[in-house]
């Protein structure tokens, strides 16, 4: 894995392509909570060496150079990462949405974007072992792991 500055994303990937990493396997992002990690997996088809290249992007201004002029195959990957994570790829030749229809939808793979099903569905784990009146007391209220408390629907 190689960590690079997001301002040098294009330069680093270009240099790697000159070094033989000419095949872009995939490009995606990960929401780390504090920032986004933009991830590209490149392969050298002659040596079958492969490398993960990672650049941190601030969540509130996630802007980076498009790799499409370098790797034509980055086109759909960047369109997907753009709509899923709210990243702007500067210089992308065709920055339309790829999978999502709703132009106004918040990027669904950002951890700050509520997932409607998790908001609407009462969590089955909220029930208490032994029933609500087990031994005449109610156990401490449990919350589903990994779901912000304000998203959780009240049980029936």
């Amino acid at each position: 894995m190689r960590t690079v500055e997001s301002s040098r994303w294009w330069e680093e990937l270009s240099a790697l392509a000159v070094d033989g990493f000419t095949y872009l396997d995939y490009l995606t992002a990960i929401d780390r909570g504090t920032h986004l990690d933009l991830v590209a997996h490149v392969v050298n088809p002659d040596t079958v060496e492969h490398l993960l290249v990672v650049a941190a992007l601030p969540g509130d201004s996630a802007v980076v150079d498009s790799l499409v002029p370098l790797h034509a195959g980055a086109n759909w990957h960047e369109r997907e990462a753009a709509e899923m994570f709210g990243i702007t790829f500067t210089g992308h030749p065709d920055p339309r949405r790829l999978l999502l229809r709703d132009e106004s939808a918040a990027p669904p793979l950002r951890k700050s974007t509520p997932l409607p099903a998790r908001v609407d569905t009462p969590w089955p784990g909220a029930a208490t072992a032994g029933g609500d009146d087990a031994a005449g007391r109610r156990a401490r209220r449990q919350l589903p792991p990994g779901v912000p408390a304000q998203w959780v629907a009240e049980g029936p």
Partner: protein
Amino acid sequence: MSHNDEIPAAAHGYIALTPAACTSCMLCVRECPSWCITLESHAVQTSEPGARRPTTVSVLDAFTIDFGLCMFCGICVEVCPFDALEWTPRFDYAASDRSGLVQAIDQLSGSGDQR
């Protein structure tokens, strides 16, 4: 026709429940990332001969797995401290409507109608 002989015993086919081993601890329900397990239980007091105080135990009333939502990750099987859940190679539980994929104690434990 059955191909059960050819499927490894631990294949992620179907999750079987042994109700007698389940203590209604809710761990599987809470850990399931798909929220597809439900459990209902009630508490009863039991007195063991010679014990100083009665103990409260949970009695399992209902347990369902919605195989329409389950992603066969196996987390429930892993977390169950009492080995009440286990993988079985069963695969033939297709249903003609959505509700048929919600399997209850009878089906999960193999004690009732397998369809």
